[in-house]
């Protein structure tokens, strides 16, 4: 068990490219922290620096208060699960799981007991004498996990351990990992590019972009109170809707109607200086409701608008309605491009609403939707900062 502290940890490659900018993060003992972000955001580099597989070029990494920048990976007592599993193909499952024990010089009888116990935890008992080539993807993944947990390391590092599994197995393994981590109580740093995985797994989420931390906090907080456009766009599925908006006479003028500023918004906006007139309005698909089913719950008077349902996706537990609005404005921000992997412009006449499956809506309908104005986020298009949240 260990506390992992990163203090201004940075990575600059010899060619001058900086993959990670002075990163500050403390992973508490027993905590499950998820590093998440689009590809190339520096999350894997960060993990490799914690592992010792990559040199730290600036800052300090401490495990339980001791500086380990210069300590070799084998001396850090950290186990890692790789995306590729990296099982040793010439060894059986038993030998694979037992490899760290063999290197540690544990006597055979004790090691055998440990291996059996690990196999039991991971449901690998019948496979111990097979070689990795004769295992399914899920089994290989479990062997990789076994190799990590067998020696009770101070911390686990996981580098996209589920991304090679098919969707169903991934959901299954997700809960397995979650359960395992709770049971063992071992400090875990987990890297993924999948926001669903990040939301469901960890205690805290560290969302990164371009080598910088965008926001750190419990998944729920990142979902509800995103600090900027990037976070707002990255977290949540389907993604938050972004629409152009303007402040006019104490209200917001937008394609989803005139929205009176709530007290919360007014206070937040007043505390900032230089709020631009044109803003990006963000509203989650979950914020909308079909008024025929009872509308929304919220303190403020609900707002409403109508649009034509272009496509309706029925997912059983919910319905996703893609609406076209009567507007030609578009939202443009490089911060959105990062969150949506290159999609820079967000057409202001498109909107997704997540509705109750009981809604009688059909494709082609003119649909009236209601929403709580307090569910609105306002962002500055140039800096991407969420103006309705206290930074």
């Amino acid at each position, binding site marked *: 068990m260990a506390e992992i502290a990163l203090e201004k940890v940075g990575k600059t490659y010899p060619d001058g490219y900086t993959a990670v900018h002075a990163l500050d993060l403390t992973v508490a003992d027993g905590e499950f922290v998820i590093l998440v972000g689009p590809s190339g955001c520096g999350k894997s580099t960060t993990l490799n620096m914690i*592992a010792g597989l990559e040199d730290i070029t600036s800052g300090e990494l401490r495990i339980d208060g001791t500086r380990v920048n210069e300590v070799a990976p*084998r001396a850090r007592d950290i186990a890692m699960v790789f995306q590729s599993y*990296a099982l040793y193909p*010439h060894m059986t499952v038993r030998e694979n799981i037992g*490899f*760290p024990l063999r290197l540690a010089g544990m006597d055979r009888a004790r090691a055998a007991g440990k291996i059996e116990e690990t196999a039991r935890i991971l449901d690998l008992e019948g496979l111990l004498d097979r070689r990795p*080539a004769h295992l399914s993807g899920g089994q290989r993944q479990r062997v990789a996990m076994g190799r990590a947990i067998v020696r009770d390391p101070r911390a686990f590092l996981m580098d996209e351990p589920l991304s090679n599994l098919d969707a169903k197995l991934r959901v299954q393994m997700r809960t397995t990992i979650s359960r395992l981590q709770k049971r063992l109580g071992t400090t875990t740093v987990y890297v993924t590019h999948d926001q669903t995985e990040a939301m469901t797994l960890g205690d805290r989420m560290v969302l990164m972009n371009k080598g910088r931390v965008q926001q750190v906090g419990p998944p729920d907080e990142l979902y509800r109170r995103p600090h900027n456009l990037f976070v707002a766009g990255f977290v949540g599925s389907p993604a938050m809707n972004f629409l152009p908006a303007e402040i006019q006479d104490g209200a917001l003028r937008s394609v989803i109607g005139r929205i009176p500023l709530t007290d919360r918004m007014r206070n937040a906006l007043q505390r900032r200086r230089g709020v631009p007139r044109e803003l990006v309005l963000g509203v989650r698909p979950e914020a909308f409701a079909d008024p025929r089913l009872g509308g929304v719950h919220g303190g403020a008077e609900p707002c409403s608008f109508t649009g034509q349902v272009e496509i309706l996706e029925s997912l059983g537990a919910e319905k996703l309605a893609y609406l076209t609005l009567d507007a030609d404005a578009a939202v443009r921000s490089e911060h959105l491009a990062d969150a949506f992997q290159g999609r820079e412009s967000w057409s202001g006449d498109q909107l997704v609403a997540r509705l109750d499956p009981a809604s009688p809506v059909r494709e082609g309908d003119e649909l009236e939707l209601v929403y709580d104005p307090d569910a609105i986020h306002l962002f500055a298009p140039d800096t991407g900062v969420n103006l309705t949240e206290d930074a």
Partner: protein
Amino acid sequence: MTTGRNRARWSAVNALVLLYALVPVAWIAALSFKTPATISDGAFWPRRWTLDNYRGIFANDDFVRGLVNSIGIGLISTAVAIAVGTLAAYAIARLAFPGKSLVLGVSLLIAMFPQISLVTPLFQIERGLGLFNTWPGLILPYVTFALPLTIYTLSTFFREIPWDLEKAAKMDGATPFQAFRLVIAPLAMPGVVTTAILAFIVCWNDFLFSISLTSSDAARTAPATISFFTGSSQFEDPTGSIAAAAMVITVPIVVFVLLFQRRIVSGLTSGAVKG
């Protein structure tokens, strides 16, 4: 229809190639079983079979000594070339170090260098160093010329081994040498065996260095020894003995390759990583 015709066509081509490659070998084999009287009768198959040629060469101490030299020098050279080549190839495949392309370039240069142009300087150097006509005197050039081949072949094998395996070994607590010995080397084994066979063949088949850098049977290898064969009288050609000796030095190599061919299994790394 078409596949049948295709197969027939391929069989014909295969037979032709085999014929082309094996007729000289068969001829030598046939010669080695002929008696001195029938050796020049023009018949392909011996009219009268005899093992006298084989008995003769094994009674010849020089040839037996040459075989011993060949085997000893070949094995030592191969072992040294593989040991050095494995480490060099690993470094070339995995590490970024200054002068890497220079090392590769120079080793390629050595491989392309015409050996005949090196014989005279080598002769002088080895006489000066006292290596002339000794085992080390032959092992040295053999290792030198086997190394480029070894480095090239092995670095390809090392490149195919997923890097993640090494990282995993490091995380599991292995020192770099343990990672190499317990994870990388076993996976590279098929490649090492293949390369070893090739290196051994290079040394075993050498004639030029052996004839130039030796003066007695102290280090002269079998192929060079054959060129010193004499007939039982000055009116007799040692053709039969040469043929028999040629068979004796060819057969082990063929057996060797056939034996180890099974070890050259491809796809041993499957299952390591999802791919």
